[in-house]
């Protein structure tokens, strides 16, 4: 009889562990589909093995041996070229571990090897299977895991290609059954009953009816269509726009192409690294710009342009960072670039004024004044594909107010106006109309450009790289984007903005290059990794005296703040600045070169009102985060008071022995027990409660009862408190310590 009962109980447990395993299995399914993780069977076997060791209550040493052994063998099987019996693989494995651990120390997350990641994945599964064991056997409540599973699947279903329709139904049913069974087991534990077939049957029948009924209703009930068709583009664009971070899901086309005559069509991701840049701040990298819009794409009619030659290491401009150029601020910076893909062109930071380019193998650089293409040459080899080079440059920010002064094309050389306001003759009229409508309230070029830039932030525009059509035979590329599809990637947005600007007779050109890439920290420095996904295009607008100023129309991108407001400057800066405008000849190269760091600070101070807002926001955000962290910590500290408060009280009552010490100490203990979940009902006598406490903490020598007897003697018999306390103090200390466990 007893044997049968325990058999039933273990069967019951097996079922619970099985269901827990099934829930975990639902987590592993998408991993298989969505990532490049293969050999899922290995992990599932590992999960089962791990659950089994917990179910059988194998000693932890044995468990570690078994699971570690399995992990090692699995990794050997998956990754080692060596045979299992050639024990050299162990050394190989150890070496791999060591390497990865050092990479972890250096936070080189991307460089972790696959075998090590597999190993970590095993550990993760191990941890979760422990949690399942904990939830099933100890807590007897798996609701958290159940809920997380549902949330996880729902998120995947919404944001990834993974189709979790069936999964969610399965999880629902499994989850409800497990919850029901655990409720049963909790109930039985609480009432100290044994699991019996009869009881189980009586529980299971209504449970299965309820699960079936709720499952059927849930499945059959009519459901609203999604209220929010596809949140992904919105969220990603919002996230990118607000964080100014254009990496990841953001960008662009399959790498950098030189032929832009026929724009359109879908593009797919390409993670190939183009170059690594060691730069102290993030900015775009320019390759070239194009000026002639055909209605289908961009060409350079006059493909030659003026070539300017510079020698390696030669100063291109004679400037210092403190130089006051009209309407702009400079920040002297240096970047070193390590190319991974080799091109003829040399990407350089933008918006910037280049000062110097240096590479080991290059002798000369050619800068095309028209296309802004920079190329390197060697005397002996001709055109060079650079591998490593360094660039000294002045990163530029523009004074918004200064730019606002430009309202017409006066003072602009005619050739610039001709080249950069070119538009195809058959450009649909509605584009012009749209441009005028967007900018009707603005009077200067800067605000007009900003208005057009902001126009693309509207909810009707969607950033997407998939299912982007080519324009029809007689259709204009920009017209199609602006009025028909309203979806596209950087080329669509930037071309449209250039065309809109040009239709207002504002000179603008189409710039190409790379966005800022993904930052990682290496040896305390930022390294930006620029991949083919970062290939990007944007807009440059010509302002007299200032030159070409970049704008970023593409939804989800933000060419980090390139504008400031001189009006919010300090008085000194203001004067300085005015002087710079009125007397350009005062640009004195001999002014002391300020350190870039100070320069950064100054630029920060001189930021425009928007960025002042932003810095306020940042400050507020930091304060909010700080407060949040502090309150969470306080909350956690308060929540865990059961752990530490007793020690406070022990110290407090250590040397004390006044008339109410025992009463206070005893009541502290009662409160502490209450916090520990051992509650006393109001009508419960201290003695009954003491017995209950002793049972809960399974105290062998009924400490609580003993202490309570002492307290009773004082309370109900009128014994001297001081005397009693002396006698029971140690007992009390032991007890209150016990409650922290």
């Amino acid at each position: 009889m007893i044997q049968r009962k325990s058999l039933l109980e273990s069967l019951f447990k097996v079922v619970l562990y099985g269901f827990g395993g099934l829930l975990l299995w639902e987590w592993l399914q998408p991993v298989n589909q969505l990532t490049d993780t293969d050999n899922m069977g290995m992990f599932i076997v590992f999960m089962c093995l791990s659950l089994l060791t917990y179910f059988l209550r194998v000693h932890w040493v044995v468990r570690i041996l078994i699971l570690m052994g399995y992990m090692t063998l699995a990794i050997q099987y998956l990754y080692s070229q060596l045979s299992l019996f050639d024990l050299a693989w162990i050394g190989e494995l150890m070496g791999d571990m060591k390497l990865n651990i050092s990479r972890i120390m250096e936070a080189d997350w991307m460089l972790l090897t696959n075998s090590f990641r597999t190993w970590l994945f095993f550990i993760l599964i191990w941890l979760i299977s422990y949690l399942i064991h904990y939830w099933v056997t100890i807590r007897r409540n798996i609701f958290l895991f159940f809920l997380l599973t549902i949330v996880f699947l729902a998120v995947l279903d919404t944001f990834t290609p993974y189709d979790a329709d069936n999964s969610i139904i399965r999880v629902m049913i499994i989850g409800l059954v497990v919850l029901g069974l655990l409720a049963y087991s909790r109930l039985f534990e609480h009432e100290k009953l044994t699991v019996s077939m009869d009881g189980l049957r009586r529980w299971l029948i209504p449970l299965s009816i309820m699960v079936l009924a709720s499952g059927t209703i849930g499945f059959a009930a009519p459901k609203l269509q999604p209220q929010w068709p596809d949140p992904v583009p919105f969220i990603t664009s919002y996230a990118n726009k607000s964080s100014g971070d254009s990496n990841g899901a953001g960008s662009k086309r399959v790498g950098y192409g030189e032929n832009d005559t026929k724009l359109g069509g879908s593009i797919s991701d390409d993670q190939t690294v183009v170059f690594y840049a060691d730069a102290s701040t993030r900015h775009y990298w320019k390759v070239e710009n194009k000026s002639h819009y055909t209605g289908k794409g961009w060409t350079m009619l006059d493909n030659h342009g003026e070539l300017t030659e510079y020698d390696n290491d030669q100063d291109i401009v004679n400037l210092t960072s403190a130089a006051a150029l009209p309407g702009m601020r400079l920040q002297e910076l240096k970047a070193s670039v390590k190319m991974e893909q080799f091109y003829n062109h040399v990407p350089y930071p933008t918006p910037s004024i280049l000062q110097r380019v240096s590479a080991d193998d290059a002798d000369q650089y050619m800068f095309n004044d028209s296309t802004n293409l920079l190329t390197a040459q060697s005397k002996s080899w001709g055109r060079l594909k650079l591998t490593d080079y360094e660039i000294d440059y002045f990163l530029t920010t523009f004074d918004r107010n200064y730019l606002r002064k430009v309202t017409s094309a006066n003072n602009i050389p005619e050739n610039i106006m001709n080249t950069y306001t070119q538009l195809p003759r058959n450009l649909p009229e509605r584009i012009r109309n749209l441009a005028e409508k967007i900018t009707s309230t603005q009077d200067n070029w800067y605000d007009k450009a900003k208005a057009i830039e902001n126009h693309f932030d509207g909810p009707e525009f969607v950033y997407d790289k998939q299912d982007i059509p080519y324009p029809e035979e007689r259709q204009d590329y920009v017209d199609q984007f602006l009025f028909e599809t309203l979806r596209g990637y950087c080329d669509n947005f930037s071309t449209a903005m250039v065309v809109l600007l040009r239709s207002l007779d504002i000179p603008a050109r189409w710039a190409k290059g790379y966005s800022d890439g993904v930052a990682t920290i290496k040896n305390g420095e930022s390294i930006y990794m620029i991949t083919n996904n970062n290939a990007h295009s944007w807009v440059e607008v010509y302002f007299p005296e200032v030159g070409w100023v970049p704008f970023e129309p593409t939804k989800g991108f933000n060419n980090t703040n390139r504008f400031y407001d001189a009006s919010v400057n300090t008085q000194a800066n203001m004067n300085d600045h005015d002087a710079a405008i009125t007397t350009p000849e005062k640009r004195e190269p001999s002014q002391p070169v300020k350190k870039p760091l100070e320069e950064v600070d100054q630029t920060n101070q001189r930021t425009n009102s928007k960025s002042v807002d932003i810095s306020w926001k940042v400050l507020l955000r930091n304060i909010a985060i700080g407060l949040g962290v502090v309150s969470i910590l306080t909350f956690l500290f308060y929540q865990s008071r059961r752990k530490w408060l007793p020690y406070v009280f022990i110290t407090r009552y250590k040397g004390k022995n006044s008339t109410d010490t025992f009463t206070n100490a005893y009541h502290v203990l009662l409160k502490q027990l209450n916090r520990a979940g051992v509650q006393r009902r109001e009508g419960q006598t201290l003695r009954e409660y003491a017995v209950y406490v002793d049972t809960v903490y399974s105290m062998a020598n009924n400490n609580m009862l003993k202490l309570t007897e002492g307290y009773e003697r004082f309370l109900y018999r009128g014994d001297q408190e001081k005397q009693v306390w002396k006698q029971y103090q140690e007992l009390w200390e032991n007890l209150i310590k016990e409650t922290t466990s």
Partner: protein
Amino acid sequence: MTYEGKHPKLNEVIHNIEKVIIGKRDIAELSVVALLAGGHVLLEDVPGVGKTMMVRALAKSISADFKRIQFTPDLLPSDVTGVSIYNPKEQEFVFRPGPIMGNIILADEINRTSPKTQSALLEGMEEASVTIDGVTRVLEQPFFVMATQNPIEYEGTYPLPEAQLDRFLLKMKMGYPDIYEEMEVLNRARLVPPIENLAPVMSLVELRGLQQEAKSIIVDDTIKHYIVEMTQRTRNHRSVYLGASPRGSIALMKASQSYALLCNRDYVLPDDVQYLAPFVLSHRLILKSEAKYEGITAEQVVAEIIENNPVPVKRAVN
């Protein structure tokens, strides 16, 4: 609900009773408690569950004088108290004491007799004396009445008025033994009835000493407050028409003292009060008729009061 050892002497008495009555230790204990407190017990139960045996065993254990009165409708007060009979030889009235002139009296089916006869017994219980033919005769101490009442037959009964019920310190139900206990009863019934072999384990003098001792058991003010609070709650309870009187409070305190003595403790605990309250208070409550219709019993009311009455866990600040 106590964890100390019992008072050795009293424990012997209870042990003695247990030799005869199987599985009714609590009833035996409560009877001893009532005996120590100088109170009386009303047993409400069907015939044949061992009420008489229990009282006899108690009487025998303390070598007390045991009397039994079977109440019938035609019983007269003089049948209880005794009667003076004219003795022609001596030419005077000689008092022939009735069954009330004993130490331990079993008043069987007390509700079968007329109120007049009942009151003869009840006077003795309260006053510890009876008046016969104008002469007041003090009853011998200890004087302990264990009355029984049959709860199932109502035909031809004179239920004790609620006010009279107040005279009983405890009211309890004996209940049937469980299956194993009853099997053991059968075993023992095959042989000589064990009651015949029962030897006294306590003298009346000792008993009187213990009764005195019970009176000196410490009842702290916190406990007194707890007791009074409890009886007051019976008076304010929504289902109760008439709550327990101050006599109820006294009874609860005295019973608690005796129980503490039985538990070999010289002070009263709330546990004692809680344990005894249902036996002391239930029969002192008159429920509202609507409560009765709802099937609420006095026991339930008392249990609810015990549950909600906060146990004193701090000394009152005075």
